[in-house]
């Protein structure tokens, strides 16, 4: 712990050393989460404080055709020891030739077009302790060549090491009655976390229609759980899966029409289909440059009731407000509704505002409503929170 703190103190001063080529930058942030209710499973603390350090070093040469970057990440959480963790978000070399780009090292890749959930996005493991919305990801070791042609981009991913999902610990929120034991994960495949996962993606655009097709074969990012009755812990069990993903986005004037379809064969659920279909309409420049985006998405999953978060026939209605001012104030507020019961599952607000050139404030609200009985979300009903995050960028 002490080393961590001293590291936090020393790093910024190292960062400002000017005589090293390349660019040092990064973020140091303090985060505070307030849970109005006590947790349901003895995780009763209402105030959760955190410190985050995310330094960044990058150097590029040959007219930005080769880039090396490193982004370590550390969080210290006051309450949850599982949430105090470190990760190498990025440690990669990307270099490109006229028709080929090669990415080597630990990196992050995002696939998808929709806002409510990211079905096809499979390369990186979710860093779940960071945020229950699952948008934070762990760095993934990869060798990834991309073939750049006039007909689109063909990306190949060779993923030699598997990253396990992070789960909140005993004193953390967003967990069920039984704590997940992340130290003793099990694998169905004999190669364990050394299994080499492979993935291919072809993306292109045809005038105003963007589309991508992807294929993945390897360790399922989503674990099943085995109850260790002796220790009363949940053991994550990672099986193998295959999936095919389709992303479509059509842009027409102020409209963006989006579709993601996933066809997945997982050891846990067998063969199933999931889809997100929706649109985003932007009212542009309505008042001094303010943009207001209106989003609707339909979430479908053929697994039905057993869909982990219960979004098997749900709607996502959201608005994105970008004030377009000097402080870059932005608000995204969205609500997930269950179509059958029309009950609200989740309500989320994310807002950001720049306080000063190097300081920004983010506010997040997450409220769990009445998700379907069988869904995992139902376990988190006491975990509504309000979060402030003050970041200093350097």
């Amino acid at each position, binding site marked *: 712990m002490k080393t961590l703190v001293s590291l936090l103190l020393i790093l910024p001063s190292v960062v400002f050393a000017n005589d090293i080529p390349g660019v040092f930058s990064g973020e140091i942030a303090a985060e505070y989460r307030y849970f109005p209710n006590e947790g349901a499973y003895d995780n009763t603390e209402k105030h959760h404080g955190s410190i985050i350090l995310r330094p960044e070093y990058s150097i590029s040469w040959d007219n930005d055709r080769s*880039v090396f970057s490193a982004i370590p990440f550390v969080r210290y959480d006051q309450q949850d020891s599982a949430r105090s963790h470190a990760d190498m978000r990025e440690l990669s070399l990307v270099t*490109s030739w006229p028709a080929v780009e090669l990415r080597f090292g630990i990196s992050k890749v995002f696939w998808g077009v929709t806002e409510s959930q990211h079905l096809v996005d499979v390369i990186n493991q979710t860093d779940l302790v960071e945020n229950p919305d699952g948008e934070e990801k762990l760095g993934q070791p990869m060798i990834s060549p991309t073939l*750049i042609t006039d007909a689109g981009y063909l990306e190949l991913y060779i993923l030699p090491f598997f990253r396990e999902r992070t789960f909140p610990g005993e004193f953390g929120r967003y967990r069920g009655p039984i704590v997940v034991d992340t130290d003793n994960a099990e694998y169905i495949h004999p190669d364990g976390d050394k299994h080499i996962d492979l993935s291919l993606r072809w993306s292109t655009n045809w005038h105003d229609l963007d589309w991508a097709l992807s294929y993945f074969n390897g360790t399922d990012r989503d674990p099943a759980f085995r109850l260790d009755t002796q220790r009363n812990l949940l053991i994550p069990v990672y099986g193998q899966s295959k999936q095919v993903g389709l992303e479509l986005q059509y842009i027409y004037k*102020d409209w963006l029409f989006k579709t993601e379809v996933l066809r997945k064969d997982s050891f846990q659920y067998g063969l199933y289909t999931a889809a997100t279909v929706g649109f985003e309409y932007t009212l542009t*420049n309505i008042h001094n440059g303010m943009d207001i985006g209106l989003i609707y998405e339909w979430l479908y999953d053929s697994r039905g009731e057993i869909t982990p978060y219960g979004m098997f026939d749900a709607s996502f209605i959201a608005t994105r407000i970008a004030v*377009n001012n000097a402080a870059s104030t932005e608000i995204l507020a969205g609500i997930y509704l269950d179509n059958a019961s029309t009950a609200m599952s989740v309500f989320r607000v994310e807002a950001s505002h*720049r306080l000063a050139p*190097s300081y920004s404030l983010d506010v997040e609200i997450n409220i769990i409503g009445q998700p379907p009985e069988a869904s995992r979300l139902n376990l988190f009903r006491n975990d509504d929170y309000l979060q402030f995050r003050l970041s200093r960028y350097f």
Partner: protein
Amino acid sequence: MSTNDRAKKQYQTETRWGNTVLKHPYIIIFSSILLVLMLAYGVRFASVSSDYRYFFGEDNPQRVAFERLQNVYSQDDSVLLTVTPTDGVVFKPSTLAGLDFLTKQAWLLPYVTRVDSITNFQYSHAKGDDLIVQDLVNAPNLNAELSSEVLSQLKAIALAEPLLKNRLIDEQASVTGINIKMTFPGKSPFEVPEAAEAARQLAQKFKQQFPGHETHLTGMVMLNDAFNEAGIRDVMTLMPLMYLLIAVMLFYFLRNIVSVFTTLGIVILSILAGVGFSGWASIPITPPSSIAPTVIMTLAIAHSIHILKTLFKVMGKGVNKNQAIVESLKQNLRPVFLTSLTTIIGFLSLNFSDTPPFHDLGNITAVGVAMAFVLSISLLPAVLSLVKIKPRLTKQTGSTLVTRYAGWLDRRSVPIVLTMVFVTVMLGMQINKVKINDQFVGYFDNSIQFRPDSEYIIENLTGVYQINFDLNSGEPQGIADPGYLTILDEFAEYMRSIRDVVHVATLTDIFKRLNKNMHADDETYYRLPEQRELAAQYLLLYEMSLPYGLDLNNQINVDKSSSRVIVTLDEVPTSRILEISTLATDWLKAHAPPAMHAIATSPTVMFSHITERNIYAMLWGTFIAFTLITITMIIALRSVKYGLLSLLPNVMPAILAIGLWALLVGEAGFSIAFVASVTLGIIVDDTVHFLSKFNYARNTGHDSSSAVHYALEHVGGALISTSVILIMGFSILMLSGFKLNFVLGALSALTIAIALLVDFTLLPAILRITDKLTVNKGVIMKTKYATYTGIVIISAITLSYGLDARANTQNPADKGKWVAVSADQYDSGFKNQTAKINMVLKNKQGQTSERKLRIKILEVTNDGDKSLIIFDTPRDVKGTSFLSYSHSLDPDEQWLYLPSLKRVKRISTNNKSGPFMGSEFAYEDLSSQEVDKYTYLYVQADKVLGIDGHVIERIPVDPNSGYARQRVWIDGTHWRTEKIEYYDRKNELLKTLTYHGYQQYANNKWRADSMEMVNHQNGKSTTLIWKNISFGLDVSSRDFDRNALKRIR
């Protein structure tokens, strides 16, 4: 008289002729060969032309203008010999000694009148009060050991001299050229090949004596020689191939040795007659006319095959040979005569062309075809009557196929017609998309040394396309007038600023140098002399110092009333050459007194106009050919209806072929103008054969359905075989090293193939329909068909217009657009740019906040630029990048990269009026200002910062723009935008953008150091401060793709 009687009577002539041939075969053979030999005797007068001027008629206005220029100044035929030292260093003793050797030896070449090189460049400098003019590198200088100091001094002088740089020496001093001017007496056609050969030998000799050097040759002399070489090569390589092909084809179709040899004999005799005629008529051989034998051969064979096929068919039915010959003549004499006549008309119509070599092609072919006709109805049957021919029983394999096909045609005639009409209209609408390019280097393929050599020189040293402007001062000795010189200098500067201009040679550079020399080489005096007397004196002094042969007569006329500006262009299509010529003349009209309003002249300009002139000329030629051929058809078929109907299958193939070419290939030379008339005469043959058989059947009592069947059965096979021969024959022209022949061959082959298709589908279908209509007299049917056709035509036109709608641009007639185009032209050619930007936002209270961006811009020719903006601060958005492809007509495309999510988001570009990063700049203010994004109004001429300029108004075309209009101030000298006022949708003044601190960069482009946007309605302002602007980096389109967006930090 019954139809049968009429038919009998009609064919009396043919039968009588057939019997005559059979009675006196020897007389026929003897007299026909004698006739050919008489014509063929002319071969000994055959000559070769190797003068590009022969491509232009005597009264071609561009040729006249150019010859007038050549009479004023010295002649321009030259050889540009370039020397590339393998180590890439020109300024070293061995290379300079070699250049000195070359320069001196070049004087010994035939017809030479002037030699310019960097060694004999007349370098003037001051020595005290004296003006010294001497060779830049002279022999004494060379004998002494050249120190590296002297060498680098020489290099600096050469590269600082506007007359040399990018003309005789490249910027790295790694390639140099020697320009050898020649004046040909024009007495013998072998002058040019002789001079070209001598130049090649000199280069060879030089390479032997001075190893470690590469040489390349271009210039007008080499171009002329290349025409010559291409013509001879076409004759030498295409002919043997043609013979081989023909022999193989004949064996395949006839399977009879005697008839194959007879046919080949006829072919050879026809060619001899054609070529002999060219000798008698003293027509020189040029690349276009050199293909005449190939064309004659193809056509002559078609005739013979028709006669022979019928003969075998009749004999196959057990008729004896002599009767079969008569029968064959009876059936074929008329169609063969007709087809020959129409072919001759088609080829003779080439005489309407503006390019004499194509007259020659037409005339030679016409004579050859006439001869082939005579021979195939006389010599051929006469020979056949004397030799033994085994009858072959023809198998009737095809007939069930023919029956089935005819049945299908019968049932589907309406859809067939409608489909063909639709396709024709669709493809016809594509024709205007053909891009015409007559770069004369591109006329040749790489097998002709002129092309790779010229391309090397364009790539490494200078351009080969030049345009001249003869600028007259209006009075003798007027070129020393400072007013004249100032405009001349501005004109040269303007031309230098235009994209694709490589070099501008102007007298003012000499004046500036002299003025400097006369002021003790003081650099500050490198400007035009201010007094007329002074200028005149300098010039006189300089001219007196110049040695023999290196005077200024190539730049100044005798009474010193005018001088010429020579503009050398990069590798550009001819359309661009015309564009630049127009820009130049427009500039002169706007800035110079009337005496100086010169037009662009040069061989390049002549070639740039050749297509347009030929197309107009051939429109008439083709129209007249069509009319004559249609009249011939009406008379021959004795039916106005069928004669007019024949127009359809005659017109459609050329339209379809050219339309298809426009879609698939796109680019063509001016020979495309001849395709219609050349092929017309040939494809008519198919129609003639089909219609005469159809007519024969109708007259002998068949109804239209079975007449179609009869015609298909009797000429179907022959049509296919002749078409195949014709297609292959014309395809052989595609092997020509000469682009015009290639295009002509390819398009003709395509046209003939399509014609066959049309004759087998549309023609019978139309015949059926019209017949039904006449039989039924059904008004309802007629209306129905007319409606169908109307709908099809209208939908085809709408569809094509729909495709074209975006491509249509407005006529750049008005002056406002002219200003915008000029500004765009002036700035175009920067290729790419990178810079850092500090964006300072200021609110109403005067508080500022700053953001730092990096920007990369890639110029995209003929479309909007691509740009990539990366944010460095504020730190929370560091790494956020913005990629934009702006388009001149389509909406822009934009992507945003969010580094924290690693997500690339496509952005709706409707949001162009929104502020960029909270600044007062809207997205649309920052995207590249393409000319086509606005319509323009010229407001007034104005002083812009004390300089003459223009005020224009531009109205955004895009309805999503946030502006009703913009008022733009542009200075008239450097075409820099100085100020823009933006009016919002309510037409109230919203913002004003002013540009400050313009600087000119190494590539002559101007960039402002800062741009200040003030919003009058909210009191805020944003200033962009540009830093580290650099151009011409190693940045290409691959740095602007979406992966680059993800990669960048």
